[in-house]
């Protein structure tokens, strides 16, 4: 394997792995903040114990999120140096802003929260976890704005052999960036919601700390439903924007080959990329794809054949990931409706309580599938339409990349297993008994 392939695998490993830990950080910081605030407002000790319990799981998860994030920032320079040199003026500054405005805040105040229970006044303590929640949201915005720029470069000109910034405002307020942010963040909240529901259900089935876990369940049920619906809405708006900015990606997501109007959406499809067609294509919903992409039944949707083969993303992984993500999204809505329905007396619904712990891995999968659609769908470009992935790689010897890739796999595999083991262990252990700590 050459440096390009190895670097792509290494980057994929590092990002997928990082994003196993990001979503729970995003959502659980907010839920913990809400719990602690409710505890202070209502003088309800249960909520404070909840904040401590969920906050502990937050920290176990956060540990790997932090350390795997640093490697990502440096990997652009180590493995993608030609890309970095080409886009640093824009992409690099978004990353630097992320560090300056968000990482300091996040890392400093998470320490205040963990070590500060007795050192700082209660209100300031609750403010600390809110600051962590705000910082992680702000950090998500900047990094996703950077990703959005790779997908849909705006506000730049090619000068001095590189992309130079001409309009900062356009880069950070483009629709693509806003939607990317909303859809990604909403996806992380769904994951967090099912995590809290699943762990709460496990304890409720065993009648552990019933009042405390009923409160957690109730909060998470409503939260999960709201964001499951929001995922569908933002997902739909994202597809609409793709029809304008990345039509080849959209066509690959639907395995749609021929440009046309009144394009139906087939519920059952199996792509045959070699022959530029679908082997199976059944159960059409008339004009659905046209309508979803353009808001008009006879709107034109470009097919893959519109693009030269060397400009098309790999169809099968993009198509399958997209289908699976959407299917999971529908399942999330159904289960979330059920949870909201029974939220006040979850103990009366043992079947739901038995199902929910098994739901926990599914939004993890959905988040990873979403990134697969986004990033494999961006191929063969590293900056869409401007620079090809193969032109962005560093001239590092393949042997060195192979060596570091092996270390990455071993180290991440081991640490990931340990981290999930600890999450599992402390999730099952439940909150500390009342009146302690």
């Amino acid at each position: 394997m050459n440096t390009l392939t190895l670097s792509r695998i290494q980057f994929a490993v590092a990002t997928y792995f990082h994003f196993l830990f990001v979503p729970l950080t995003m959502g659980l910081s907010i839920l913990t903040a809400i719990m602690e605030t409710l505890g202070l407002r209502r003088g309800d000790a249960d909520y404070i114990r909840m904040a401590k319990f969920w906050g502990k799981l937050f920290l176990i998860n956060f540990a790997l999120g932090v350390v795997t994030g640093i490697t990502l920032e440096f990997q652009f320079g180590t493995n993608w140096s030609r890309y970095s040199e080409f886009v640093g003026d824009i992409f690099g500054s978004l990353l630097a802003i992320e560090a300056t405005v968000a990482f300091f805040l996040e890392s400093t105040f998470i320490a205040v929260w963990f070590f500060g229970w007795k050192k700082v006044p209660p209100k300031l303590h609750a403010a600390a976890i809110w600051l962590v929640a705000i910082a992680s949201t702000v950090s998500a915005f900047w990094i996703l704005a950077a990703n959005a720029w790779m997908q849909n470069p705006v506000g730049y000109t090619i000068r001095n052999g590189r992309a130079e910034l001409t309009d900062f405002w356009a880069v950070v307020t483009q629709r693509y960036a806003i939607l990317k942010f909303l859809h990604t963040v909403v996806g992380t909240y769904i994951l967090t919601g099912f995590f809290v529901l699943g762990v709460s259900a496990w304890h409720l089935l065993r009648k552990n700390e019933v009042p405390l876990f009923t409160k957690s369940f109730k909060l998470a049920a409503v939260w999960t439903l709201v964001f499951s619906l929001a995922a569908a809405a933002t997902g739909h708006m994202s597809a609409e924007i793709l029809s304008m900015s990345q039509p080849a990606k959209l066509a690959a997501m639907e395995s749609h080959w021929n440009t046309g109007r009144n394009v139906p959406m087939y519920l059952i499809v199996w792509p045959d990329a070699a022959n530029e067609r679908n082997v199976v294509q059944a159960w059409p919903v008339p004009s659905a794809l046209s309508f979803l992409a353009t808001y008009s039944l006879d709107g034109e949707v470009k097919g893959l054949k519109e693009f030269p083969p060397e400009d098309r993303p790999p169809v099968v992984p993009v198509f399958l990931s997209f289908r699976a993500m959407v299917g999971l999204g529908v399942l999330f809505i159904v289960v979330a409706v059920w949870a909201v329905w029974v939220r006040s007396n979850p103990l009366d619904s043992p079947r739901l309580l038995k199902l929910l712990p098994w739901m926990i891995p599914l939004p993890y999968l959905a988040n990873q599938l979403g990134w697969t659609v986004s990033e494999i769908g961006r191929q063969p470009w590293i900056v869409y339409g401007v620079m090809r992935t193969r032109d962005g790689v560093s001239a590092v010897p393949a042997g060195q990349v192979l060596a570091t890739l092996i270390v990455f796999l071993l180290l991440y595999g081991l640490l990931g297993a340990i981290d999930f083991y600890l999450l599992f262990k402390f999730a099952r252990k439940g909150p500390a008994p009342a009146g302690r700590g």
Partner: protein
Amino acid sequence: MLETIWFYVWGVAWAVYCMLDGFDLGLGMLMPFIARTEQDRRVVFNAQGPFWDGNEVWLITAGGVTFAAFPKAYAVMFSALYLPLLLLLFGLILRGVSFEFRNKVDSPAWRRVWDTCLVVGSFVPSLLLGLAFANLFRGLPIDRQGHMQTGFFGLLHPYGWLGGVLFLLLFAVHGALWLTTKAQGDLHRRAVAAARILWVPMILVAVAFLAATYWATPLWQNLWSRPFLLVLPLVAVAGSVSARAWLARQRWWAAWGASAIGIAGAVLFGVAGMYPNLLRSTLSDEFSITAFNAASSPLTLKIMLGVVLVFLPPVLVYQAWVYRTFKDPITEEFLSSEHSY
């Protein structure tokens, strides 16, 4: 002008990273020599507890500044130093997780694993940082395309090793001084002894490094052309010497502060001596990557300067506040609470 400002912002980010995370890294390396009981080891972990993560963000910022302000330097430097940089990151990963994992399973063998990770994850990054900086001071065989004409082993020359050893000693003394403020009893006494003992080789290696810099790099000649910058090596030496003096007078915080200033002075001495080169080519001056030929567009540099001016002052304020809030020595009561490592 903008390029020059950013060159020094870049240098300051590295200097602050070294002076802050330096004590965490130093403490991690010293742990096996200085901590004898389980309680001692927990003091070592908790002495860094509220600080290490925020300190590490200065590294991310230094990397981010390189990327944003000098994309070409970021690209060439980070790919030329591919292996040392990734080893450094692997080290920091091991260190980072050891804090969170160590106390989560009640078993001596488990804790030993994470103790080892802390030690290795502190030692390796310190050594590699020194090695990398020495190589930047000396320059690398970079060709016209920005490709390095030597392998990993080409970085391991005597001057590089000297830089690595210097960083190990600077950080070890810095970490021991930090522990003098956080530990009590026997551990405190051992921290004082360690700082005292290690200070001697540190100052000897520092002098040797400054002398070797004269022969191995153009730093001194470059500084000589702007003599007011000679204050930086003076600050470095004065900081280290006064750290020793404060230590003798049992002024622990003052000793640590002096050491921090010494480290910052040392890094800034090197950076100022490199100016305007970010990465000097030993093949030909025209291949060197400078603050001017690697800089981002003036628009980006201006926007980023605005970001730094608006957002960095509050960072300094709240980081200083956290240092103040958690300034007390680690007590048994603190360790017995569940809100400690």
